[in-house]
């Protein structure tokens, strides 16, 4: 299976409850002492496209291999697409929508 590079969307209590009520809590993982996170996978080409679209974002090549520092509004949009599609496989649709 090809390597994927995550976008981490950190979830506050309000969103956690919303995801739980929508039956989507299983999409969440726990990290860093109980913090809830939606881990949205990107392929290498999706990662490169996202970094090109949002130059302020950074790929943490050294530690986590994840795409970080995306603006909150961008992550909110990805979050909304995950909820609407009830799936984490949203990055192609997201990139097309930009």
């Amino acid at each position, binding site marked *: 299976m090809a390597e994927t590079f995550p976008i981490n969307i*950190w979830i506050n209590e309000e969103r956690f409850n919303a995801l739980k009520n929508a039956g989507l809590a299983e999409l969440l993982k726990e*990290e*860093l*002492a109980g*913090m809830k996170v939606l881990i949205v996978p990107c392929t290498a080409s999706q990662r490169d496209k996202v970094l090109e679209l949002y130059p302020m974002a950074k790929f943490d*090549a050294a530690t*986590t291999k*994840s795409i*970080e520092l995306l603006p909150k509004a961008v*992550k909110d949009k990805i979050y909304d697409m995950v909820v609407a599609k009830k799936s984490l496989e949203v990055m192609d649709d997201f990139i097309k929508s930009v």
Partner: protein
Amino acid sequence: MEMIGHGGKPLVEQVITDKDEARKMIKDLKTMPVSRQMATEAIGIAYGFFSPIEGFMKKADVEATCKKMELADGTVWSIPIVYDISDQEIADYKIQQGDKVLLTYDGNPLAIFDIEEIYTYDKESIAQDVYGTKEDKHPGVKRTYAYKDKFLGGKITLVNEPKIREPYTSYFLTPRQHRELFGKKGWQRIVAHQTRNVPHSGHEWLMKHAYIAAHGDLPVEQQETLEGRAISGVLVNCIVGEKRTGDYIDEAIVLCQDELRKSGYFRNDIHMVTMTFWDMRYAGPREAVHHAIIRTNLGLTHHMFGRDHAGVGTYYHSYQAHHLLMSIPKEKLNITPIYVLEWAYCPHCGEVTCVGLCGHHKELQKFSGTKIRSIIMDEVKPTRLIFRPEVFDVVMECSKKYGYGSPFVTTQYLEQAKPAFSIEPL
């Protein structure tokens, strides 16, 4: 009392504090304006942060620094401190070797520059020797390639001390002032924590690890037992300088580091925060050596070095800085490095732990500064085991007060934030 700095040489202090004398000294000198970048380095040189260098480097020192990681006299030195200038500026200001020039900042007198040498040096050679790469994606290399046509070398004398603005005022101490304060506190062993970050718990534990390591061989009777009787301490020395978008703003770094002490995560008498003006070069191992030199000049006895010290991207191995420091003979670096492994959160242990201690390797959740920044950007309050709530509150306050709504450097911050210091009329 003479103070001894890096290389066993007297601490450099080239500062004229008598304003009348300063006015006399600069009378009739030709003037040349300097950028914030050059002003910062002139201030650093004059106060002795970079002892034993007394001025911007001449070619022999640059050559030795690049090729041998030494000054021309054999003192360990890792990063060139250079003054670059264009041919046009040399013509416009009629600069000649042997001139004495008044450097000005914001239109006010800053320092006298004795121009002893005008020279050229191959920038690609600096890049390869200092940074280990010629790629301009590396921020230090990019800075090197931006140097102008020539370099000026010679002694610097500060004639007008900088005025440090709030909230930094109480955090800026010269090397002499650091040493005097350590003397008053009775600190005999002091370990440096180099930082350009707001602290998460991983950083906090690195500091605690280094503190314990720095005085672990003392009898417990000599280790502090009562508030106010510490003989060893942690100095968090924040680097304040050139920023890149996405970095924490400097105000948040300094105030959040101090919050760890204010909120009791460190005792009042064993923890202190100060700052040093320095533009990070991200030179990884060579920058680690430079940090060790600066902290030697501040009077510290130990320096903590963690994973990926002063690195960027994947240019250096995680512990390459440790290996370079270990290769330097002890008598050439008068500070004891403390090498620490990273700390991570272990859900099995339910605590933050050293990766070298914990047996639950597959379960460990590593800290990443970038990941923590991402959590804060998402406006989610991290759990207290990961990020202290008092520190989070200070980050958010700084965001409003200094960061135009963001705790991270934005284009607006770069354009509008005031520099940490100003130079007033003399």
